[in-house]
């Protein structure tokens, strides 16, 4: 058997619906025999009648409804059709879900699934990675699974968590990543994972960029470099300790993120490492992000816009020389 990242997301939701009566799924086209723009809820409406509900094109109200239901004890999972459309739901997420526990003492256990990141030909409005916006505001947990196993266990965990979780699933990984089977348990949320050990350089990444980093590292390994790769798993909370421990071993840091550069996760990581572990660094920490323009439609432009194995290799080489 082999299971994709996308199937893991579907399986996690099936399990959640099966095990917990408080769970329901809410979003555009998630129901019927359609099962979502990416089929992440395929078959679930039939298996769990009345609990997988199509909604109007009303992202603000979708989130508002989920928040209200969560306050009353439900555990809604919201699917945004694309992360990019969560800009419409942003007010409810940041100002309502994100503030509610702190203001009233009543937690808002919602999971918001954001199909995120670039794929070929998707252009400025179907490619965005919005984790930095959600992580900037208080009151939210932001997950960015990079493996099939994490996609599964973290989604399940997100529903168990009493606080609002923004679950950024990467569309590029949907079909590109496969695993043999689904685990029962994963690392707890908020803990980063050392994906590959090394001693010459630490690459910190998350979501689809972990895969790009691994490809880059494999190439650099052929030149004799041993590079450690850290997968953050959640960008908020950010597991600074694991990152610092890795930098302590390697003395060099490269952060790779697919979102826009200004104030992205890469800036947050570099800031933590330099303010808390300055003496660990043997060279200037570096970052690699998408370019500071909208995400282009044309594949030629898109592949130049996002970080990829090739420019990770180039940047790493430069850093290794310093």
């Amino acid at each position: 058997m082999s299971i994709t990242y996308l199937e893991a997301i579907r399986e996690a939701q099936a399990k959640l619906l099966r095990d917990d009566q408080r769970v329901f799924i809410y979003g555009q086209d998630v129901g019927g025999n359609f099962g979502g723009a990416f089929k992440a809820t395929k078959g679930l409406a039939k298996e769990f009648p009345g609990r997988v509900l199509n909604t109007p094109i009303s992202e603000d109200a979708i989130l508002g409804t989920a928040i209200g239901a969560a306050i009353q004890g439900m555990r809604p999972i919201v699917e945004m059709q694309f992360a990019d459309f969560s800009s419409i739901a942003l007010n409810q997420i940041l100002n309502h879900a994100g503030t509610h526990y702190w203001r009233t003492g009543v937690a808002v256990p919602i999971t918001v699934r954001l199909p995120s990141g670039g794929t070929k030909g998707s252009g400025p409005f179907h490619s965005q990675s919005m984790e930095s916006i959600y992580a900037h505001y208080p009151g939210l947990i932001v997950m960015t699974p990079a493996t099939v196993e994490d996609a599964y266990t973290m989604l399940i965990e997100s529903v168990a968590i009493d606080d609002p979780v923004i679950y950024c699933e990467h569309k590029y990984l949907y079909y590109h990543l496969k695993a043999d089977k689904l685990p029962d348990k994963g690392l707890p949320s908020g803990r980063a994972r050392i994906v590959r050990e090394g001693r010459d350089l630490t690459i910190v990444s998350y979501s689809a960029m972990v895969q790009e980093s691994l490809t880059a590292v494999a190439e650099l390994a052929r030149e004799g470099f041993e590079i450690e790769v850290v997968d953050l798993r959640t960008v908020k909370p950010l597991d600074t300790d694991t990152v610092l421990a890795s930098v302590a071993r390697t003395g060099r840091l490269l952060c790779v993120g697919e979102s826009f550069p200004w104030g992205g996760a890469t800036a947050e990581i570099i800031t933590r490492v330099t303010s808390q572990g300055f003496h660990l660094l043997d060279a200037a920490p570096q970052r690699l992000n998408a370019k500071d323009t909208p995400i282009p439609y044309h594949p030629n432009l898109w592949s130049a816009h996002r970080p990829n194995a090739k420019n990770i290799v180039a940047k790493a080489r430069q850093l290794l020389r310093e």
Partner: protein
Amino acid sequence: MLQTAQRTVKSKKKKGALPHERFLEAFRWMLLARTLEEKLVSLYRGGLITGGVYIGKGQEAVSVACGLFLQKSDIFAPLIRDQAGRSAFGEPLLDVTRTYLGSRLGPMRGRDGNIHRGHPRKNELAMISHLGAMISVTVGALLAKRFKGEKNFVGLACIGEGGMQTGAFHEGMNIAAVEQVPLVVVATNNHYAYSTSNDREFACHDLVDRAIGYGFEGYSLDGTDLGACLDVIGSAVKRARAGRPPQLVVASMLRLSGHGEHDDASYVTEEVKQQPFARDCLKVAEQTIIDLNLLDADTLAEWRKDAVAQVEEAIAAAQKEPAPEGDKEDWCALSMPDLSDSFE
């Protein structure tokens, strides 16, 4: 405590109050709200309240009707001018004074202020400022009740005519109708959104005409007439509870204060103040009571005194309480502190 006594009266009424008993009960809540808010205004003027004070003067009749027909298990989403409705729904005065006076023991513990207070566990939602946002949240709360198999519940959400122009309002109304939840939306057209008069807010002939476009049942209401408010809003609640489609009530009146107490409302013209919708619902209700001889003057005076006493008591109590302090806060926005991020 007098407030409790009054509540007993209320719960008796629920078992089939005579119209004039209901009217008197409502009037008494209105009186309490007006008394409380006048006191808050004077505290504000005296520099004893931080942040804004927004009052419901002139809107108590509509507001009280919003709170009065709800059961404890119903959902109530009040806004900034709903003191009367909040009290009628069961919010203790102490919640109000603790919040305004910044007591650490209030429902918001000093973290949020004044009109943003709420008690989600007691089904009184805690509004965020962004207007329109509470409609869909109320829908979600009702959806949850349906999921959980509860019966006979309703939700009531308040909105101003200004807030009706937000996208959130639209999406919330529409999704309520799609989900066919038992929701009543009570809109108050008090003719102003802050300083902006109706002509720059919307251009339809009558806001109640929006009901049909959502699949709501719609009703117009003279918000200065307490009897009409009890009748129209009470019926809307009853219809929603009975499974009719969502209900929209649009009430008309004038905001008889500034937008907040920092605002002298000098933009409200004398002409507007002479319009029928500019009547003070409390005075109108009192006149009805006198005209129909529903209460004698002594009782009326007694009620007033009682309201003052309740307010004074709640203020005195809150004033004795400790303020929150920065170094006693855990500064954690999550209910699960282990998942909290740390910035050194």
